């Protein structure tokens, strides 16, 4: 950056300076366009949530509600179980994340510190294999597998365990990377201070990887919160996640877009709040490598 400073001072003639200005303007214009492109769905979602059902079905879409209906947001809870769906989703996402983090940290630690004993060479394949087949391929087998368990498919536990199939490899992989970055010597110093390996892990290693861990937690939580495919097949009666509730907002053969969007917006609140609360730690998580003594 200091180089830039020297060069701009050195550039005494006006020409290159103007050229730079055009490039900047073009760049900003591009950014604005791109932003509009990405923000538009969110915008359209929001205004749809405020429209009347009739307005959502006009052949010429309106980009500003003619008749504001904030009551839509209460309307989605006309059926009490809809609120319970949010709670079910929350329970499933949170428990799954906790489990994925707990197991993933232990596994990640083992892979980081004892790569040979833990069969580290095969880890990459295990992770990749989870991405090699479409999730739908295991949908039916998984259904029958869970069906013979005592708690069946229509339960919190079934989804909590099922989502580990996706979240555990991710958590293991990322935690392994973070543990590798945390110097072994610090743990050894802790042993010599008199801490047992488990306490050294909790007292020294864990605080070092905590920022990274929070980032992993966010990723896992958001996946479990938003998952639809498996939830749709597995649960529905005793337990309902919010994702499978959204398509139920219909009136006869008519889709109630306004209620679907209102409910979707409400469902976006928890992850957004979580992100805002934990953002500070996540940023540090990305620069974990700097922690070294």
């Amino acid at each position: 950056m200091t180089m830039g400073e020297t060069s701009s001072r050195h550039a005494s003639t006006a020409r290159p300076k103007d050229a730079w200005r055009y490039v900047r303007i073009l760049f900003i214009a591009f950014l604005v366009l791109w932003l509009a492109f990405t923000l538009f769905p969110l915008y359209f979602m929001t205004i749809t949530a405020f429209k009347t059902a009739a307005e959502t079905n006009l052949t010429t879409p309106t980009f500003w509600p003619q008749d504001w209906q904030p009551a839509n947001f209460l309307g989605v809870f006309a059926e009490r179980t809809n609120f319970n769906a949010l709670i079910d989703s929350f329970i499933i996402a949170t428990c799954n994340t906790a489990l994925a983090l707990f197991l993933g940290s232990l596994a990640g630690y083992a892979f980081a510190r004892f790569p040979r004993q833990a069969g580290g060479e095969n880890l990459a394949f295990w992770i990749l294999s989870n991405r090699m087949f479409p999730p739908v391929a295991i949908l039916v087998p998984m259904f029958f597998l869970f069906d013979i368990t005592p708690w069946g498919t229509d339960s919190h536990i079934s989804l909590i365990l099922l989502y580990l199939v996706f979240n555990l490899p991710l958590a293991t992989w990322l935690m392994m990377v973070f543990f590798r970055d945390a110097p072994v010597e610090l743990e050894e110093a802790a042993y010599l201070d008199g801490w047992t390996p488990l306490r050294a892990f909790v007292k020294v290693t864990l605080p070092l990887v905590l920022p990274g861990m929070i980032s992993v937690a966010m990723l896992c939580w958001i996946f479990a919160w938003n998952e639809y495919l498996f939830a749709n097949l597995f649960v529905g009666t005793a337990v309902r996640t919010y994702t499978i509730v959204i398509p139920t907002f219909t009136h006869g053969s008519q889709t109630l877009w306004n209620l679907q969007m209102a409910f979707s917006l409400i469902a976006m609140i928890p992850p957004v709040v979580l992100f805002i609360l934990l953002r500070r730690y996540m940023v540090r998580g990305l620069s974990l490598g700097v922690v070294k003594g």
Partner: protein
Amino acid sequence: MARLEVERICKGWEFPVIDELSFTVEEGEFFVIVGASGIGKTTLLRLISGLETPDAGRVVVGGRDLTGIPPYRRSIAMTFESYALYPHLTVYENMASPLRARRLPVRERDRRILATAKLLRIDHLLERRPGEISGGQKQRTALGRTLVADPEVFLLDEPISHLDAKIRHELRTQFHTLEDLRKVATVYVTHDYAEALSLGDRIGVMGAGGKLVQIGAPRDLFERPQTLAVAEHLGQPTINVIPARIIDDDGPCLQSEEGTLRLPVTDFARPLLEKLQGRQVILGLRPQYLRPGHDDTRGLTLRADIDIYEPLGTLGIMLVRCEGVRMTAVTDPEMTYHSGETVTLTLDLDQLFYFDAVTEKNLAVGD
């Protein structure tokens, strides 16, 4: 409080790093292990501390065999070359770590940390984190963390070698005066021979092959090295090594293999050279005992041509050729000489070492 015994300890991976190495450190003794970088000194400390499991042999502290006892149940404190301070904890919390592990009452903990911090002059830094203090201060904190632990054995791994000369000097002096260090068994590892000589009650010189080549008091080591390797490792500039033969020229005298340097056999050397296995001998002469000037009382006067002369800070180093033999001599750095000049040097015959050319053992030191 206890003595440390290391008995025929072995450790190796693809090839042996530590090979049947033994030594004993008495309670209150400061034992220094000196050797080149990468020779296995750190591995040795890790074996003693229990961070590494020996392939064979044992570590005994206070009569108790520590084999199979994990590091956190040993009363051994160790500083790491990289300091290994916990970056997320303050200086105080770093020092408190060993005391917390032992569940010491808070008041006692505070008292000990404060006392140690004062001693090490880091008491004004207690609330800072390792990232916010200088290298010297980090080293003091690492030292403080081991000192407060009040262990039976101290292990110090190159504690001052990465610091500035001035701080190094200051900390070295401090090692002499730290009572806590001086009352237990301490093993101090360094590659710097001057540090070793200065600090050690006894020194073990570690050679290639994972053995201690010689163990002894600093003076013993420097003035009576058992092998050529020890003589070469201690001292700077490195000792002059002159391979020679014994010839008869109106009585025995020493003729250098290279060049035409001829040295008389002193009364001291005569019985030694009789022990020699062949006719060949390796002479060792510290550059300090080859000085410019004419001094008949101290030894032999020689004429030499200067190849290179460099005043290097506290010493002037002169690379000379003397009767075709290349040697290093030292002078006062304020003197000026030029390459190609001829000088008169005095060689102190009493300071010559005689090594067997085959075994490289010092003939004057019995086994």
